[in-house]
């Protein structure tokens, strides 16, 4: 089959790649663009380690065809920090020790950013259901939920003082 030429925007920059028609966006990000922050834990949309934002919507990039990225806007974990200044959720994950092995972490960070963009004051219940598509086998989720709560608190306070 004919290979596809794709022009897209990744973390604010134009990106171009050639891909197989059946190739996943995750494989293209990791293999074609060397953005290996997004991880593959299952390849079937069950673990959330490949979570990215596609036109602002949270998706599992393993379930999106690379060719579908044409003309779209992609945000990955590599684009979360502002230069060397971490996004609050990245900083809070470190402060709360919300990662052990760190393999699921990129997916959790992107999913959390999506949650807080959408709902700045989520309850514990809302946090737990929003993140239910992201598997973590190390932490038991306790410190992840606390880190998300603390991030939301800080971002709300910053908005108030801004």
């Amino acid at each position: 089959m004919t290979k596809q030429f794709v022009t897209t925007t990744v973390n604010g920059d134009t990106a171009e790649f050639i891909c197989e028609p059946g190739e996943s966006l995750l494989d293209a990000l990791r293999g074609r663009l060397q953005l290996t922050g997004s991880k593959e834990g299952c390849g079937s949309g069950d673990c959330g380690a490949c979570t990215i934002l596609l036109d602002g919507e949270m998706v599992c990039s393993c379930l999106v065809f690379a060719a579908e990225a044409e003309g779209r806007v992609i945000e990955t974990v590599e684009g979360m920090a502002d230069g060397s200044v971490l996004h609050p959720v990245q900083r809070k994950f470190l402060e709360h020790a919300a990662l052990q092995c760190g393999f699921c972490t990129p997916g959790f960070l992107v999913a959390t950013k999506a949650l807080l963009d959408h709902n700045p004051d989520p309850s514990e219940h809302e946090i737990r259901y929003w993140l239910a598509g992201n598997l973590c086998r190390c932490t038991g989720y306790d410190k992840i939920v606390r880190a998300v709560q603390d991030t939301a608190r800080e971002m709300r306070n910053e908005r108030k003082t801004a």
Partner: protein
Amino acid sequence: MNAPEAKSGFRHVGTRPVRPDGIDKVTGKAIYSPDFVAPGMLQGAILRSPHPHARIRSIDTSKAEALPGVKAIVTADDFPTLKSLMVTMGESAGNIIHVSRKCMAQGKVLYDGHAVAAVAATSAVIAAEALKLIEVDYEVLPHVIDIDEAMQPDAPLLHEDMVTEGVQPRPDKPSNIPTYVSKTKGDVAEALGRAAAVVEGRYSMPMVHQGYIEPHACVASWNADGQANIWCSTQGAFVVRMLTASVLGISQADIRVTPLEIGGGFGGKTTVYLEPVAMLLSRKSGRPVRLAMTREEVFRASGPAPGVQIDFKIGATADGYLLGADLSMKYNVGAFPGNGVQVGLITALYHYRFESFAMHGWNVVTNMPGIHAYRAPCAPQVNFAVESAIDELAYKLGIDPIELRLKNAVVPGDPGFTGGTLGEIGFVECLEAAKAHPHYSAPLGPNQGRGVAASYWINAGGPSVAAVSLAEDGSVLVTTGSPDIGGSRASMAIMAAETLCIPYEKVRVTIADTSAIGFSMVTGGSRTTYATGKAVIEAAETIISIMKARAAGMWGVDVADVAWGDGEAICLDPAKDNQRLPIGKIAARMNNTGGPISAEASVNPHDYLPAFGVHICDSEVDPETGQTTIVRYTAIQDVGRAIHADYCEGQIQGGAVQGIGWALNEAFIHDKAGRLDNPGFLDYRVPVCSDLPMIDTVMVEKPNPAHPFGVKGVGEVPIVPPLATVANAVSRAAGVRIRDLPLSPDRVYSAIKSKG
């Protein structure tokens, strides 16, 4: 975050600094094994058996070889014939022949997913296409999955030459039972005859999987001169080196193994499945080769934890003193003999003072993947039976379940699990902390029940090497061979900084490859902070001695007149006016005062202490669906002393949640044809965030006197109590005892209905 903060007398131990590798892991920069790329690298793929048991008549690879882009194909014929040799992998042991056969089937396939051939090609698409062109002629054989069926005399035999070890006289016929073990104390029948209450039952659970989120992956590059590089995800680069060299029959020094960041292991990444195959593909093609498992391959073809069937009978006096225990354990170890029931034997009963016991155990091979270590390997299974029965006994006698455990708990000086006597263990302290915890006396709502269970894990010590050196500005480099699976760089930096009395940020930690530092055992057995920590502390102490000698030389005083404190040498000679030399000044002049300041420590400590944990769970059972909700969970553990308080708590929380998943949801399910029916995270259901409450932790600190900072192992014991803790809670909530895991809604619902 309910742990004590920095203890008096320590500046770093017990605090919660950000881990040194943190930023790499929250920005996507950290390189895990599936991320690694070598120049010119080929993509490999493995053909796996669709049958659980079959003889391989022939394999025809000619069509695959002819496919453009295919550079190498490997089958069992490419593996050397090995002599029987037992090897240890840290928390497990096995025969090197079986390690090799887990990498590639030889003669027979023994489980659904067993590797039969491998391909390396210029792209993953071509490699996948080539697999379809390989023709394997199978003679399908009858298979066996069930423990009882596998033990029958007429069961399909997995290994025609396997005879039960541990039985006298030696059996003259092969069977599916590789191992029998037993241990007795006193007269159990007599003791149970005197009991005021007896509980008897059969307990069971299927195989479960570690479920690390990162699938196994590696890149191997084997040059024509015999030297090779392997980059992989492992809990122990040295075990990868030893196993790969042994399977391939080559020199260990020819293989340099670089451990990349590891995406979870839990014991499951202390062996090799892919590395020897990737090596052979690389030698044949002359290029680096990547092999990576899919999630389905991880479930079908790596090493799960054994399923069990356990018969247990236990009796006590009217006031709750344990008289006797009669225990029969059958461990389903999958396709190869493994370390199953041998560990069950030493982790079953030794936390209580039984007057008498009789333990019998069998390992049973079946057409499922061979087991491998999973966090406190083989202990949770038997603990589920023992702690469920203790709970029933307490209920029958009308004694509070923690009180009954306190009456029988072992204390320092009691006999040890493997000989000797118990040292400064903290079991009673954990039980007392559980009894006093507000959770234990909180009111319960409708359809709710509270469960408690207790357990221990032996922990481990063993060999580790660490190096500590000074940079010219007095900052400090620590190098170890212990992969960091959950924050151990931080604990090593804390221990080095504490020893040297310098800021935490002045210490940086590197995990070295196998050619850059001496041997260390795997990151496993809850041994790293204890044993590798000891090596780091010892090397740092040597650095202090060297720095004191350099300072003495610079001052012209005797070294006995130099002390170390607050990151500087202090001159005790009154004539020198109590001068001080900070670490930075000593380092700046080190190459003029005797040369680089660097030290390596090689340790092999065995003065570790076992860990004890007591968990409390409130569950709510929906009587109309059988669905269980975990409402509240508290895990209490003697940690010795927490070095990094957050990562200590994290181990306890993570272990507890893996145990909750094991209790409620997780199971390998095989269809009638012997194929794994749920090889994905949709159907093999690990706990998700919305399944759980916060996991409260209480860290009891009874320091290990043999470790400079009091460390005991932390990582494994928390997975042991949850199975019975949850089952006891569910049984109370449902009003009926359930002795089989998982406690899936259909099982709980049926139990509620059957009680009428």
